[in-house]
């Protein structure tokens, strides 16, 4: 019986780790009416004591990308996110307009799947960078 509980606890830990892991994404949608494409590049990740990167989305371009996550490396930077945006724009042969950053950072770790923060700041921190723009 204890083996079943141990296995269940390990599975729950893996699910929590994956749920809390960072994610890099490039979202794009073309509007025929506006004859333009809206692009949103975002990346997020987790830091220990607000200075040690634990896990974040892997912002490495596709042929060299080893997996969706980057461990102990900071890919949640303006340079990496904007570089991927410009790379996408270059591949589409379009000019870039209306670039806007929306950044978020949380210093309180909320218990996953709840909105309850652990009241110890800077223990486990979350950072997110979103860059949106229009390609014409």
């Amino acid at each position, binding site marked *: 019986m204890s083996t079943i509980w141990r296995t269940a606890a390990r599975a729950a830990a893996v699910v929590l780790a994956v749920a809390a892991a960072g994610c890099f994404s490039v979202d794009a949608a073309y509007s025929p009416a506006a004859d333009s494409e809206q692009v949103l590049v975002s990346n997020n990740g987790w830091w220990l004591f607000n200075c040690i990167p634990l896990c974040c989305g892997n912002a490495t371009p596709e042929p060299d990308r080893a997996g969706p996550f980057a461990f102990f490396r900071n890919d949640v930077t*303006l*340079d990496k996110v904007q570089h991927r945006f410009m790379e996408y724009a*270059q591949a589409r042969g379009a000019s870039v307009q209306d670039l806007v950053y929306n950044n*978020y950072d949380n*210093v309180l770790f909320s218990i996953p799947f709840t909105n309850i923060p652990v009241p110890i*700041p*800077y223990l486990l921190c979350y950072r997110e960078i979103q860059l949106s723009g229009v390609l014409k």
Partner: protein
Amino acid sequence: MKRLAFILAAVALAGCSSVQICREGGHDMCCVRTSGWKLFNCIPFVSGNPEGWCCRFFSNTVKVETNIALLDKTIRDGDYGSVSNLTSHVTEEPMLPLLLKRVVCHTSAELIPREASER
């Protein structure tokens, strides 16, 4: 021991202000961020000092005015003539509901070089 605990707590709760510029792909983007902590939802406890390092106590610098002043300084110090796509947003993070919360003000803008803005 109590003094050490107080110093550690003060450091942990410190606010900060930062300006980051990214020059990837021929677009100079500037992100300004100021953070701080508020007591009882209204009393500024500690917030980032826009004029230097460390922080300010019982003074509210987490507002758009501070971010725009930092952006102005960046424009003046760099070779920029104007900005475009200027946006700001504020995020709040309650640590102890009603007692203590963290507030962050973010501002994003594209910096236009002086030559391009004079054209």
